[in-house]
């Protein structure tokens, strides 16, 4: 019901929205919860386990009951707090976690079965027969559990992430936060003020008091106006600081577009990483419920919630309101309701010494012991001494006192301190370096306390920044906070602690009875605190009940750990930018467009895209194209872009010495103008990478790495140089991106290459020379990864596309053309060249038959560790070639022909395979126990997954031209 003359919603701007198929009207500034309450909708959800009818409990993000689905055009958003979601024109929402309608939820039967569904019941049953767990019980449990639903469709929303930096981060804009922001802002510090709600002011918007002689709302407006005018203050509304991380880093979620209809490019949410030199936590406090029998009916609400709906939204959730509270502060709710013309049927105050003087009946020393009303509250039972009276009411405002909102102070493992007087946990000072809790978050419950501590923390922060400031603290109420702790009311029935997960005092007591006495055991056994509200409404009360049940004090019982996020954060916001190709950068070759023009399917190679093959008309499969390309290279000439290989330019007098140290073999003796294959080990003796390095000048080398290991090798070289030889005359830098490099291979390679050169060069095998191509300085290498006479032609990247297109055009006139990754792979397997399929991190130089490349004359990285006894010898699997007449597969395992096939008879495995058009056979590379001693043997290849069982011949892995005559031609 809406009350005239109350609230901050804009009554000139009505808004239509929908809930469970029915249209309602609210106003701009309403939350879904306030608008539903204004429309007298009390039943908004069903509880998690028992499917009990539930209504709005709070007016904040801690809401455990009023969770709904927001339905969008493409996606729906589950578990949205109706108390946070602002209404807008066209908002469509629906209730969740029900089977049937919200009113007639078939799963409400669980409520009648509750005696059998007590804490941990599932650990004790559903065990027999075994197959029934997965087949029957578990699917039923899974369907009944859960809350809202995802649509199952890709989230098409827009999300954003951002960084921000400031001197002082103020978290919360109640009296303490505003005062802190104002103080720091006036001092000239860079301030970020985050407020979870859409409006600044915190609880000053929810109650009626005066600050500095003016109405609190006016004071808020004045301060906000000043802050907005300060260029050094950034106000972030609708922004929840969700986590405190190391070294002054905070995570924060800004709800950018959730209060508006979707718009192109408008982020729904933005996840901020805020780095702050100082932080002031002014997050206030959360009111806690009291556990009494059936305290979960729609219409039973937190007193602070009732107060917020009245003052901020102009809504009363009932016609006959009752108040059950154990503090003087909560009385204000009743007074404000009465002042607004609402009937307050009774105040029930458990404190025997509390005042009985109000303009309504007051029962002191009394407790609410029960309630009635199936889908909404209709009455309560109140016990006063031995007498139980019935009071008609449709809204009970309850308050068991306040818990300071200390969560962020615990995110770095800080343990809070129990304050007996407040009957609450307060932050341990310094628990998060640089963060100071103020106001109610630190147990200063009065408005004056909030203003004073907010001011003091800001003064301290700005002084640490070397600034000075003088801001008077305005006068405000400073009433003492006086309560008698009341966690639960004695009674027989179920009294809820954790509304969201349906955990009652009985469950907590049962946990204690069964030995789950540690607070962590209790939490895990009962699931208390694990629901969407993260125990905000129940943690302290539950552990108080546990403390009582185990005969310990609350301080001794301790709390469970608060972990980030403070309120749940969508995966999409935290993962903004990751959608589709955004997950990792895309790297494109200069030949990319030319390859696509020829319809080459492009495949991911690390971050790069490389052509798989170049189909010709009439070729139906990749194999046809691949076979043709292999043949083309072997018979004529092929061109491939190999620019993705890592290239590192190494200079200095000690460059050769440095290469000797990082490679197993020697490079200092390499003549200028020559190239050598190098093998690089990790310090643990296993192969890191391989590649060729060229000596371009006396003190100048060019190292090549594999595509996959380019970054790894650079990091490795940096480490070796900086850690072990920082004083050597050597410097290096990546030139991978500086050069476009093309392999030209085949019997006609020389002719093709020479047709490009201003002056033809005669290069020996493994030679390198500077060349000029069409007026451009380039480099020519005579190296081969195919076994044919091969060259690599390098030009500055800007000329890459032109050179590639020209190379192809001329190659085609010679019966040649481009070849892709598939053919490249076949060519190198035929030649027994290894890639990271073979050097997969578990192989030694010995395993690949290169132990002789480990120079005995010098130390090198990995040399010593490779001598460990387990790193060599016949027990190890060694690189072999495999040849078969039937298809074989990489990933297959090897066995002795005729032997049984199981782990213990396993002899090795296959790493690479191909059909070799050159040899007319299926070829493989693999690792076989003591393989080098077994050339010529037959071996059985078994691939269960692909259904292959083939006898292969074990061979030297260099199948094609084993003497290398073609290379040197």
């Amino acid at each position, binding site marked *: 019901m809406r009350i005239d003359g109350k609230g901050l919603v804009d009554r000139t701007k009505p808004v239509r929205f929908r809930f469970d198929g029915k249209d309602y009207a609210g106003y701009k500034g309403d939350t879904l919860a306030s608008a539903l309450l204004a429309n007298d909708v009390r039943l908004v959800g069903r509880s998690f386990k028992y499917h009990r009818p539930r209504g709005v409990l709070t007016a904040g993000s801690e809401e455990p009951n009023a969770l709904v689905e927001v339905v969008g055009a493409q996606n729906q958003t589950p578990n949205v707090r109706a108390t946070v979601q602002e209404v807008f024109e066209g908002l469509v929402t629906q209730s969740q976690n029900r089977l049937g309608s919200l009113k007639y939820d078939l799963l409400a039967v669980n409520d009648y079965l509750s005696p059998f569904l007590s804490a941990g019941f599932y650990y004790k049953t559903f065990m027999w027969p075994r197959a029934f767990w997965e087949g029957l019980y578990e699917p039923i449990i899974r369907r009944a559990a859960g809350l809202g639903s995802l649509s199952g469709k890709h989230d098409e929303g827009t999300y954003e992430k951002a960084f921000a930096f400031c001197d002082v981060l103020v978290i919360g804009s109640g009296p303490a936060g505003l005062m802190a922001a104002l103080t720091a802002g006036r001092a000239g510090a860079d301030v970020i003020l985050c407020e979870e709600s859409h409006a600044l002011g915190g609880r000053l918007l929810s109650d009626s008091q005066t600050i500095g002689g003016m109405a609190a709302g006016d004071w808020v407006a004045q301060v906000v106006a000043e802050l907005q005018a300060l260029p050094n203050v950034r106000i972030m509304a609708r922004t929840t600081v969700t986590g405190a991380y190391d070294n002054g880093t905070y995570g924060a979620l800004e709800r950018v577009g959730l209060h508006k209809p979707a718009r192109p490019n408008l982020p729904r949410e933005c996840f901020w990483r805020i780095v702050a030199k100082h932080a002031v936590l002014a997050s206030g406090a959360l009111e806690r419920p009291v556990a009494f029998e059936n305290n979960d009916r729609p219409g039973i609400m937190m007193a602070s919630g009732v107060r917020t709906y009245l003052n901020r939204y102009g809504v009363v959730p009932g016609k006959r309101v009752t108040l059950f509270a154990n503090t003087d502060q909560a009385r204000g709710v009743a007074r404000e309701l009465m002042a607004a013309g609402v009937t307050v049927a009774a105040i029930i105050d458990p404190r025997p010494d509390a005042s009985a003087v109000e303009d309504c009946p007051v029962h002191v020393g009394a407790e609410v012991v029960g309630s009635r009303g199936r889908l909404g509250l209709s009455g309560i039972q109140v016990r006063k001494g031995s007498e139980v009276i019935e009071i008609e009411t449709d809204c009970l405002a309850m308050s068991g006192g306040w818990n300071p909102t200390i969560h962020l102070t615990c995110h770095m493992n800080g343990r809070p301190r129990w304050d007996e007087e407040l009957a609450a946990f307060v932050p341990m000072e310094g628990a998060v370096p640089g963060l100071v809790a103020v106001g109610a978050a630190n147990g200063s419950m009065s408005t004056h306390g909030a203003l004073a501590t907010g001011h003091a923390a800001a003064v301290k922060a700005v002084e640490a920044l070397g600034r000075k400031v003088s801001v008077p603290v305005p006068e405000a109420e400073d009433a003492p906070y006086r309560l008698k702790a009341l966690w639960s009311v004695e009674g027989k029935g179920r009294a809820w602690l954790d509304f969201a997960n349906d955990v009652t005092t009985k469950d907590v007591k049962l946990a204690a009875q069964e030995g789950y006495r540690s607070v962590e055991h209790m939490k895990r056994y009962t699931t208390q605190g694990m629901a969407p509200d993260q125990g905000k409404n129940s943690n302290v009360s539950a552990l108080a009940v546990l403390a009582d049940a185990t005969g310990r004090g609350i301080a001794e019982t301790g709390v469970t750990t608060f972990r980030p996020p403070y309120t749940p954060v969508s995966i999409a916001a935290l993962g903004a930018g990751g959608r589709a190709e955004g997950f990792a950068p895309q790297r494109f070759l200069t030949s990319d467009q030319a390859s696509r023009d020829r319809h080459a399917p492009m495949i991911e190679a690390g971050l790069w895209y490389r052509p798989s093959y170049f189909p010709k008309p009439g070729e139906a499969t990749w194999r046809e194209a691949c076979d043709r390309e292999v043949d083309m290279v072997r018979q004529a000439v092929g061109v491939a872009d190999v620019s993705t290989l890592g290239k590192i330019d190494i200079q200095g007098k000690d460059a050769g010495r440095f290469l000797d140290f990082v490679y197993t073999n020697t490079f200092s003796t390499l003549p200028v103008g020559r190239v050598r294959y190098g093998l690089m080990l990790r310090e643990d003796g296993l192969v890191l990478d391989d590649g060729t390095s060229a000596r371009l000048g006396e003190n100048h080398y060019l190292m090549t790495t594999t595509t996959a290991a380019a970054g790894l090798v650079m990091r490795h070289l940096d480490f070796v140089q900086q850690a072990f030889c920082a004083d050597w005359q050597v410097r290096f830098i990546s*030139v991978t991106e500086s050069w476009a490099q093309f392999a030209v291979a085949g019997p006609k390679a020389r002719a093709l290459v020479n047709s490009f050169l201003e002056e033809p060069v005669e290069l020996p095998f493994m030679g390198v020379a500077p060349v000029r191509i069409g007026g451009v300085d380039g480099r020519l290498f005579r190296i081969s990864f195919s076994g044919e006479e091969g060259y690599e032609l390098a030009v500055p990247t800007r000329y890459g596309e032109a050179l590639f297109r020209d190379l192809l055009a001329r190659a085609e006139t010679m019966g040649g053309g481009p070849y892709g990754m598939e053919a490249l792979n076949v060519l190198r397997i035929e030649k027994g060249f290894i890639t990271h399929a073979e050097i997969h991190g578990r192989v030694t130089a010995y395993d690949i038959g290169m132990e002789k490349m480990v120079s005995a004359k010098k130390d090198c990285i990995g040399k010593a560790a490779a001598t460990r006894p387990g790193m060599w010898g016949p027990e190890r699997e060694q690189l072999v070639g495999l040849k078969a007449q039937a298809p074989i597969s990489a990933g297959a395992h090897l066995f002795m022909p005729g032997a049984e096939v199981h782990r213990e008879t396993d002899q090795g495995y296959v790493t690479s395979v191909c059909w070799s058009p050159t040899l007319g056979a299926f070829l493989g590379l693999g690792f076989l126990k003591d393989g080098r001693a077994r050339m010529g043997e037959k071996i059985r290849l078994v691939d269960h997954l692909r259904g292959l069982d083939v006898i292969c011949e074990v061979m030297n892995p260099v199948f094609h031209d084993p003497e290398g005559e073609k290379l040197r031609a």
Partner: protein
Amino acid sequence: MPELIAKSALEGRSLSVGTVRLAEVDVGPITSVALLPGGAKAVAKGLKSLGLAMPEPNSFAEKKGARIVWTGREQAFLMSADCPVLEGAAVTDQSDGWAMLGLSGAAAVDVLARLVPLDLRLAVCPVGTALRSQLNHMNVVILRTGDHAFEILVFRSMAQTAWHEIEAAAQMLAARAGMKL
């Protein structure tokens, strides 16, 4: 003989979104100058011919169209000028390895705040600052060339991704514009 046509990474592309302008910038030659141990004096002498010196960390300097940018320990990129002979340094041509993106406009700093984990407040990052960092998952060098202007050096092969991500950030910012508290 072939006629090799040069192509920059983004072929000189430019774009405006809201108040932000993004364009590929041609900076001419880029040369890495890495001091060898004991080489500082000789390099200083060589750079003097351009009126430049090895820059302090996190800074760049310009003289008569030439620019020298700090890029690491005892390392700098000389841009927009041919590199003189420098004894005492490893000198490596980097002209083709990078693409330079110019980003300017009142909201340029807000665009970068979406992508770069750096404190770019003017007081902390004044004009003349050069920072090696990341733009999302890409390594970059970021130069503050004006109160509202930046230049971003990104690996050439990733230029398209960088472009796309900056553009997307700018569009989201533009969509926010006009939304008040």
